[in-house]
């Protein structure tokens, strides 16, 4: 079943063309990893999916809801999609628990008991149930990112977007976050991940997409793309990155 359908999207920032005709279909339960050099448009592509960036032309359909400028559509789409950011973006003035329950209560209109229950379950699932009453600044980077994942999951989205989730982490903490993401993939979550972690892609991705200069250059299974890249540019990029 098609979850995400993207047809020929274009996006410019002033004179810079970030997305130059990108089309893509993502199935339910698929784990798609997007790789590419910086400036290739991978983050922009991700941010267009939940309307953090507005496309100039093309169409995006999320779970049969067309993503237009209408506020109701944007809201419906954002309820289906959870996003995890490179900089975590936890709310520093709220406790970990409140970070996770806030949107549940205000957007999903759940009761505070229900929201708290869900929050605690998720904290347990990401491995840090004891941190519920701490504040973000008291947590390590890896812990903060896991809280961010729990916060997004608490909204029970159908799709999870990850924008370079481990790029801001110290090396020893990358593993704990990737483990959470791997579990999520195994449970059947539809995931679109922009990342440099090739190991993660090889292990869990159903499909890897290589982007460069605002276009999709090549896509395939991890085996196909990493071992038998068809395009020259893909080869060049992989040789630099897989050293």
């Amino acid at each position, binding site marked *: 079943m098609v979850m995400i359908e993207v047809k020929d999207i274009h996006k410019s920032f002033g004179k810079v063309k970030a997305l130059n005709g990108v089309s893509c279909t993502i199935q339910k339960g698929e784990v798609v990893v997007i790789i590419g050099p910086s400036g290739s448009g991978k983050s922009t592509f991700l941010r267009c999916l939940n309307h953090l960036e507005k496309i100039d032309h093309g169409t995006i359909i999320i779970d049969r809801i067309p993503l237009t400028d209408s506020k109701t559509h944007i809201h419906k789409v954002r309820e289906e999609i*959870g996003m995890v950011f490179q900089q975590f973006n936890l709310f520093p*003035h709220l406790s970990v628990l409140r970070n996770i329950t806030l949107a549940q209560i205000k957007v999903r209109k759940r009761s505070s008991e229900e929201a708290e229950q869900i929050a605690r379950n998720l904290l347990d699932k990401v491995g840090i149930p004891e941190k519920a009453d701490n504040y973000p600044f008291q947590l390590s980077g890896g812990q903060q990112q896991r809280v961010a994942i729990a916060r997004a999951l608490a909204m029970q989205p159908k799709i999870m977007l990850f924008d370079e989730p481990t790029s801001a982490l110290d090396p020893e903490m990358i593993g704990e976050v990737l483990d959470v993401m791997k579990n999520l993939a195994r449970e059947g979550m539809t995931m679109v991940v922009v990342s440099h972690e090739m190991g993660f892609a090889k292990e869990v991705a159903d499909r890897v997409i290589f982007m460069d200069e605002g276009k999709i250059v090549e896509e395939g299974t991890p085996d196909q793309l990493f071992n038998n890249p068809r395009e020259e540019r893909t080869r060049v990029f992989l040789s630099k990155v897989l050293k």
Partner: protein
Amino acid sequence: MMFDFDVIAKNLPYLLSGVKFTLALACLVIVIGTFLGIVLGLSKLSKNRILRYPANFIVELTRDTPIIMQMFFIFFGLPALGIRLKTFPSAALAMSFFAAGNTAEIVRGAISSLPAGQFDAAKSLGMNYFQMMIYVIIPQALRRMMPPMMGLFTTLIKDTSLAAIIGAFELTRAGQEVIERTFRSLEIYLVVAAIYFIICYPLSYYTRKVEKARVTGY
């Protein structure tokens, strides 16, 4: 020439009676100014041009002109339009505009200094504009606004002295009246300065403490 301590002692009560008005004026102005200022500040940040252009204009007008000029304009100029305000209300109105303009800038600065990611996270969780502002943005902005707002309050207390120029009764005017009777300018003005100092110094000291504490927070 002898420094006349006696004249200070005799007139201190009268001077202190002016302090009541000084504080009343400052407090009134900060309350009105903060309220208006937040509205103006949010308007300045709005994507809506109908809100943004007038807000920009009002803020520039009230911040880039001397308070005394705004007081003159309201006290002497408005009667031409049929609005005749007494001295205290004129001073209060002029200073409120000044406070609002500065507050707007402080609000705008505080919100702009927040990382863009906070807005992104709130939006991606499905919050609408008001939910985002009330639960995520404004709580964080308020913490950043505290030091400059306290500085503004201190400035306003000092600026109440300008009300004396249009004849409003507060500490400075009280001082002028005493001098008219006693001719001891040096002693009286020094005492008046000391009274302002006693009011303002604790405030600025406390402001600095708050600023230092904030740096260790977020």
